[in-house]
């Protein structure tokens, strides 16, 4: 009960604080540079000054937060990455050199690329197909709701759910894992799925695909609905069949949105962490960069230098995709 009161109190205080800030600073500004009741020249000069200052006043809290939580950490990460484990002595590029020679890092890079290839492709593809199919059936919205639901589950929560699906019990005992139950029902031998090197990557990817398909579906469904109906009808008159209409008329028209969805998921995949942490913690050759970084930074004694170096690598990988993604999204918005 007390917690609830605190939570509500914080929320109210936050909103009121924001309002007070915007109103208060604006009021102060008008007080310093009044434009009402002044002569023409002075009023217009003051108006110009307040107009130049006001946007920065309103932006200030956001800029402040951005600096503290984004720019400062980036700078510090780069700084840490060229220092030793405690962040005391400058070591130059040695953390990066170590990284290149480290087997686990290479494994992580390889696995990350696998994730990169598989997850965005499958999630976008399933999202697109489901969006197209559910638009035509009366229970489409129910199906969409169900498929969208995993989006609301945290990655760790999803990992726990899927742990039950991949669960393995010793041979002979009853299998409670869904996958093993099916395998056994068909007469196969139960497997400890997430311990199978290489393939376990794909079992982990399935979780993220399961989560992200809903996202892709919602965005692509909206894009599909934005396609002018007449272009589809014109194609029908031109004699195109369902496949041709979908692939030659509809998909090309939403190509920009597909690219945005694809890259958004790609960025998410590069940062994949929770699922791997919760499922395997990088064991059985399923390590990924983010989990490796976490390992070095906060576990096993905490080597800030190496952890930060890995973080910088992740950032460098994400940035070009991010830039492309933002450009694409901007282009999409201009197009409409």
């Amino acid at each position, binding site marked *: 009960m007390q917690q609830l009161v605190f939570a509500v109190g914080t929320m109210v205080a936050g909103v009121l604080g924001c309002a007070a800030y915007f109103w208060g600073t604006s009021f102060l500004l008008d007080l310093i540079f009044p434009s009402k009741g002044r002569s023409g020249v002075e009023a217009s000069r003051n108006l110009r000054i307040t107009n130049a200052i006001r946007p920065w006043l309103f932006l200030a809290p956001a800029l402040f937060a951005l600096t503290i939580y984004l720019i400062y950490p980036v700078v510090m990460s780069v700084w840490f990455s060229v220092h030793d484990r405690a962040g005391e002595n400058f070591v130059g590029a040695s953390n990066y050199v170590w990284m290149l020679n480290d087997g686990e890092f290479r494994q992580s890079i390889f696995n990350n690329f696998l994730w990169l290839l598989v997850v965005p492709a499958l999630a976008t593809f399933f999202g697109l197909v489901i969006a197209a199919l559910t638009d035509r059936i009366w229970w489409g919205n129910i199906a969409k709701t169900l498929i969208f639901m995993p989006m609301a589950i945290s990655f760790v929560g999803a990992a726990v759910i899927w742990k039950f699906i991949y669960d393995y019990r010793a041979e002979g005992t009853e299998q409670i894992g869904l996958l093993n139950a099916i395998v056994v029902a068909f007469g196969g031998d139960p497997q400890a799925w997430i311990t199978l090197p290489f393939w376990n990557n794909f079992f982990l990817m399935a979780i993220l695909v399961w989560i992200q398909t809903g996202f892709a579906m919602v965005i692509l469904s909206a894009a599909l609905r934005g396609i002018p109906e007449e272009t589809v009808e014109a194609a029908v008159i*031109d004699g195109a069949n369902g496949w041709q209409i979908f692939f030659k008329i509809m998909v090309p*028209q939403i190509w920009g949105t597909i690219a945005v969805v694809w890259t958004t998921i790609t960025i998410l995949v590069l940062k994949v962490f929770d699922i791997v942490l919760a499922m395997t913690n990088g064991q059985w050759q399923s390590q990924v960069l983010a989990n490796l970084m976490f390992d070095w930074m906060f576990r096993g004694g905490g080597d800030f230098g190496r952890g930060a170096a890995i973080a910088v690598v992740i950032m460098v990988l994400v940035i070009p995709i991010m830039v492309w993604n933002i450009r694409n999204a901007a282009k999409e918005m201009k197009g409409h």
Partner: protein
Amino acid sequence: MTGLTLKDIRKSYGAVDVIHGINLDIKQGEFVVFVGPSGCGKSTLLRMIAGLEEITGGDMFIDGERVNDVPPSKRGIAMVFQSYALYPHMTVYDNMAFGMRIAKESKEEIDRRVRAAADILQLTKYLDRLPKALSGGQRQRVAIGRAICRDPKVFLFDEPLSNLDAALRVATRIEIARLNEQMADTTMIYVTHDQVEAMTLADRIVVLSAGHIEQVGPPLELYERPANLFVARFIGSPAMNVIPATITATGPQTTVKLAGGKSVTLDIATNASENGKTASFGVRPEDLQTASGEDFLFEGTVAIVEALGEVTLLYIEGLVEKEPIIAKIPGILPVHRGEKVRFTADKTKLHLFDDGGKSYRA
């Protein structure tokens, strides 16, 4: 030879009937325009002909073949949409070639037909452009070109000029009229709510209202001899003036007493049984003339004068409730608000409709 035959065509969405049994014969090569107010079903009817809407009841024949269940691409039709419906990701060339590529025509044949169509429509310069790099008029020409490439038996236009500005509309209208002459064997069906388009383009106009055909006929016949009050009011701008009247004498000529007291004798024959019935007396604004003597049709007070130079529109109040009577007098008229003006009209240009709205002119 018939181009298109509709037999008792019906359309309903669930329990709602929108087209109530349309019968229509359209000859090959004819240019037929469907007009009617919004929601009258004209676009639905066109889409049924195209095959984009299912036919709930009745039969449709194109070139003698029943096409109710034939898919749109096999009906021998082509359609031009109001919004052009160009494929935005394809060049002008590809837009026109798409249908033929689907039909697996040879490259040479595709090229020949696309270039021929582009030539007719002066699009050759733009073949490599994307639709977004074209103006509205050019886009509509591409849409028409795409339809020409299909070499259709029936050409369908769904309000093709509605998205164009006034000047382009006139230019494109003339282009469509020219196209119609060039493709003399192709039947054209054109949906519009613009009666200028209907009057200028059509061989025959089909006036629709609430899913019924009100009248079918050549434009001037509809103008001169509207079959009912709806057509009379719909064709012509400003709309025909309608004055409530009572029939006081029948025979080869009919005399009616107009609301307001004046009696008028028309050259329209009526049966004796009609005597005493209420009717609607109609006269077009442009058929009214100002009168100076005692031989006038009615007299009224001018409420508004709209001087357009070529014509002067007079809005007369006090004769009919709610609506003013409008007179369209050629030239400039020295008439001012509040003046009383008397009007007369040529006897042959008067109309009389029974209480159900049907014209007494057989």
